[in-house]
């Protein structure tokens, strides 16, 4: 029998969705392990956050009033101390950008085996964790043969916990070694305001890696013009400097909810899908019939975009 400790996440005064998903995932694991679910909320308005996090399935919420915003040195120290105190069977953290910034350090520090980016798990005796590899082309399971483990879960994979809970809310006094805090967050900045707000568009024509060369983007621009649509893109196009950052749809770009989203030469990496799955109608054009984009598309064409896009543009000129 062992408990689960889940570490919640917030930014600029707001709990992030993954915090509620962590409750669901953490409860699932705690049930499998036959223990309690402990949450930790570190930094910021911890008592305000704790009220929101007090949902069904949570046994104890540990509030740690240290600083305003995420600092990985502080998080690592606090989680290590909480772990020593609670000795949970599993520490569950978000596979978010900030999760990636402290979870591996916590695991190494505590000599815990680490499995990141879990999309499912089951503990019936041994813990089995499901992950994706090779850009979602394969799924793997790994078995963890240890009594204690560190896990990070992929945001968006577990439903958010609901209902009101009756958790014990307790304050945890961490002892922070300030000399070991060698990173300082100095601010935040929103990127890419720019000329166009793709979050406002009703129709998005979005281009991905399949376009191959910068000069080919013109093909998709022409289509967007003909349709009266707005041009957006997946990450590689922005990384290559072919379109500005304000056009990027995805986890690290913008979350969009247009009526129609036409994904052209986009394979559908999970980070991209996170930004566009809320579109009303999703249409994919891709040569690979197994591309993950077809899993979420409503309509699709499995063909070469260099044949389909000009033909489609012609239909509207």
């Amino acid at each position, binding site marked *: 029998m062992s408990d689960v400790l889940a570490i919640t996440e917030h930014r600029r005064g707001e709990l992030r969705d993954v915090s509620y998903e962590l409750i669901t995932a953490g409860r699932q694991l705690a049930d499998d392990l036959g223990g309690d679910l402990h949450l930790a909320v570190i930094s910021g308005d911890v008592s305000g956050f704790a009220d929101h996090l007090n949902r069904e399935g949570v046994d104890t919420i540990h509030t740690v009033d240290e600083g305003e915003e995420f600092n990985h040195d502080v998080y690592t120290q606090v989680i290590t101390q909480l772990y020593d105190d609670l000795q949970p069977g599993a520490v569950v953290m978000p596979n978010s950008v900030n999760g990636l910034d402290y979870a591996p350090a916590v695991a*190494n520090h505590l000599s815990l085996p680490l499995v990141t980016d879990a999309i499912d798990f089951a503990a019936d005796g041994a813990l089995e964790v499901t992950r994706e*590899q090779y850009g979602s082309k394969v799924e793997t399971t790994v078995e*963890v043969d240890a009594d204690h483990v560190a896990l990070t879960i992929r945001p968006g994979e577990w439903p958010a916990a609901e209902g009101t809970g009756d958790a014990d809310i307790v304050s945890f006094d961490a002892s922070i070694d300030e000399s070991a805090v060698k990173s300082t967050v100095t601010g935040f900045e929103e990127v890419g305001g720019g000329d166009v707000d793709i979050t406002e568009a009703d129709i998005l024509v979005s281009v991905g890696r399949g376009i191959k060369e910068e000069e080919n983007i013109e093909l998709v621009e022409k289509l967007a013009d003909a349709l009266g649509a707005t041009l957006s893109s997946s990450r590689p196009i922005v990384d290559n400097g072919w379109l500005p950052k304000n056009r990027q749809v995805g986890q690290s770009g913008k979350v969009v909810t247009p009526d129609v989203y036409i994904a052209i030469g986009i394979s559908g990496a999970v980070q991209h899908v996170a930004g566009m799955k809320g579109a009303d109608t999703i249409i994919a054009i891709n040569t690979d019939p197994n591309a993950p984009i077809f899993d979420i598309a409503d309509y699709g064409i499995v063909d070469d975009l260099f044949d389909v896009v000009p033909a489609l543009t012609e239909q509207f000129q």
Partner: protein
Amino acid sequence: MKVLVTVKEVAEVEDEFEIDGLKIDERYLDYDLNEWDDYAVEEGVQIAEENDDVEVVTVTIGPERAEETIRMALAKGADRAVRVWDDALEAADFVDVATKTDILAAVVEEEQPDLILTGVQASDDAFGATGVSLADAIDFEWAAVVNALDLDVEAGVANLRRELEGGIEELTDVDIPAVLTIQTGINEPRYASLRGIRQAQSKEIAPKSLGDLGLDASVIDSEITLTSMYEPESESDATIWEGSADETAGKLAEFLRDKGVGQA
């Protein structure tokens, strides 16, 4: 100063493939420099170009085949390379974060770098954890998912940006020595010039076994075992339009017109 860049050769999988046990059948794999590491190499080379007396060393855990990829990094401007491999690593189905951490920590012990750059993740196993785990092991500071870096060597501080979700960047100062995990888009990785490719041929790639690093095969022991690999079941319920490009474009056009698209 010395910059150590971790470089991984990753397998890329063709659209159609078969799984053989716990691996993808070799016939369907192409090997290449991990995309994130390409940006890390470029960042290291740019630091060397902007500062005096900077040596850029790459480190790879990988078989002899990986030397082709390592040469690519050398052709882009890294000065020399270390490659760690032996029979024990060859025999492992799965090398976990802790093992990579131990191996890289041993290399750090030998090389004594001031700054370590890694890719945020490798495109094959996508653990995204080695850099930060290594930082903790060697008692360096760190930052994950760095998409802008201004290194103040005099002050011993890296002024950087971390790319958070939703188009937000965090501005952070980190004391060096540090490990930074580099996000794609931080720079524009150069192509290897012909001159660089020629020069790379004469640069050193030092092969090291676990024993050379003072480690033994027990470093590969892991509490994590790969137990299955399979193609995920397609959840697709998409309507796929069939036919020639003209025909499918016609059907899509009709669908869009029905939705009122393109009717200004």
